[in-house]
């Protein structure tokens, strides 16, 4: 039985045992109907291309909150959105389901499936009404492969001045899907297109947040350790193999002589703020750095964004600049692998040369910047319309782009137009 179903059943039993009445149960929900279209034939952010798509931003969720007692409560949220392990279907998924214990005003303990407090908007990033952008900047909001873990979190809060300082500590694990995209594939070995690797992740972290009069500040540090669910190992870095003089190719597959490891260990440090500057202008900014321990991947990167938005009646126009860039040595390695070719006279030269491009794809580098302008319009306090034009400049390459077969998407600009309607009930 799927873990999420087991979790939901467990929560239901807890509710039944607690004798929770219908009056103690609250049902709410949120949704977004979002459309995005670009000016490119290839996909960006899995779904956005010149055909247009509703898949990138649309979703619907229902949440049930049950007050078990003065100190105990239970929450479950079921979300219907594009599946995480397929680009072509939607699936219902238990976003989270947890038990909360609030022994007093300053402590909150939660156990179950939770979302970790990483980005400033991490916990509410699915709730379109809770932010003004058509889409939270992907450069930052793709840093963590997943944010939903089954485990425990503890929050301790203090009153500081007019605000509240809180520390969140968490530990959890999950099985997630790591999506990579192979431009060309390697016949007999790797199919072209999206590749979903099932990974088991254990994560822990700390986040410090200060909130006062609508302003927020957050810093955090997070560690995640991932294993491939099929039992195979990660390879630390592409190894240059030279079977013959003057012939060399890079290999990233596990095997004899390859530097392998069972777990991929990642550390992410982030800082964020959202503050009012007066005259209804707000400044938002987030910065994140992620590094793998002793492994060479484009995941070793930094990202950030800066935004300005101004509320004017029901309108909130905004502009933001965002970037995501792998460490320079990773970008250099990518170019070296991607451009590597063996002479045609080498046996199976075609396959080897295709493998170089597949190996480069496996490095997953990032080198992009985005400027976006848009506006939200609050139809009511619980619903918003949003429209945005974003222009992303890809530098050396980006694993957020599904490059067409036989090509490289580099030094190109992608324009994305987005329109969405978000609501809560």
């Amino acid at each position, binding site marked *: 039985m799927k873990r999420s179903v087991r979790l939901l059943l467990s929560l239901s039993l807890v509710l039944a045992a607690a004798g929770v009445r219908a009056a103690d149960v*609250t049902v*709410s929900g*949120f949704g977004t109907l979002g459309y995005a279209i670009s000016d490119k034939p290839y996909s960006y952010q899995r779904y956005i291309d010149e055909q247009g798509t509703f898949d990138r931003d649309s979703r619907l969720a229902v*949440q049930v*909150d049950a*007050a078990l007692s*003065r100190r105990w409560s239970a*929450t479950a*949220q079921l979300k219907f959105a594009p599946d995480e392990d397929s680009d072509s279907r939607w699936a219902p998924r238990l976003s*989270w389901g*947890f038990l*909360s214990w*609030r022994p*007093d*005003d300053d402590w*909150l303990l*939660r156990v179950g499936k*939770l*979302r970790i407090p990483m980005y400033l908007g991490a*916990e*509410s990033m*699915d*709730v379109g*009404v*809770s932010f003004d952008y058509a889409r939270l900047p992907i450069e930052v909001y793709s840093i963590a492969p997943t944010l939903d873990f089954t485990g425990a979190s503890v929050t301790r*809060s203090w*009153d500081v001045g007019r605000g*509240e300082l809180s520390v969140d500590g968490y530990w959890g694990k999950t099985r997630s899907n790591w999506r990579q995209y192979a431009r060309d594939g390697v016949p007999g070995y790797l199919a072209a297109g999206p590749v979903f690797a099932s990974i088991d992740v254990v994560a822990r972290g700390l986040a410090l947040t200060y909130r006062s*009069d*609508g302003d927020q500040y957050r810093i955090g540090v997070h560690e995640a350790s991932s294993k491939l669910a099929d039992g195979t190992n990660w390879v630390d870095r592409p190894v240059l193999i030279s079977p013959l003089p003057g012939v060399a190719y890079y290999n990233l597959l596990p095997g004899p002589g390859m530097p392998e490891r069972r777990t991929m260990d990642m550390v992410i440090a982030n800082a964020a703020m959202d503050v009012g500057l007066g005259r209804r202008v707000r400044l938002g900014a987030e910065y994140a750095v992620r590094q793998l321990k002793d492994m060479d991947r484009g995941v070793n990167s930094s990202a950030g964004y800066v935004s300005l938005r101004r509320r004017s009646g029901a309108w909130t126009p905004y502009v933001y600049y965002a970037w995501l860039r792998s460490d320079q040595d990773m970008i250099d390695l990518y170019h070296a692998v991607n451009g590597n070719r063996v002479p045609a006279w080498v046996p199976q030269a075609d396959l080897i040369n295709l493998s170089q491009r597949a190996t480069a794809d496996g490095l997953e580098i990032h080198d992009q910047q985005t400027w976006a302008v848009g506006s939200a319009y*609050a139809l009511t*306090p*619980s619903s918003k319309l949003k429209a945005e034009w974003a222009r992303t400049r890809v530098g050396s390459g980006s694993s957020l782009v599904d490059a067409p077969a036989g090509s490289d998407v580099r030094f190109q600009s992608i324009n994305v137009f987005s329109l969405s309607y978000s609501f*809560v009930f």
Partner: protein
Amino acid sequence: MNIIRMCVALLGLTLLVAMPAQADGVVVIGHPQLPKLHATVLRKLYTGRSTEVNGAPVIVVNAPPGSPVRNRFLSTYVEQDEERYVAYWTVRRFIGKGLPPKEMDSAAAVIEFVQKTPGAIGYIDAAELRPGLNVLARQ
């Protein structure tokens, strides 16, 4: 002279009766056992950052969204407008850190609720205040 005095008195009485009841701010009322509360405490209670007073559980209730008394209360005690307050609770609800206060349809409903429910706190227009209610704060 007596007639004149009587006419003046009658005129004054007529004016008094004819004048509409003027709203004189918002009054926070609570269960008879609750003490007076500072605005800071009320802000924490209505934003979910606190759920108790002097160690005893508290239940706060709101007026309907968009109502004048709610707008005045949010402005005076929570220092937020309706949109910011709803946005605040939207985030808090959907990250599983609490539910917004329940809403009562009328001042009469608020009064009945706070009088009967231990730890209950609500607010009404000052014009709705009647003798016997426990006033926790008034501005």
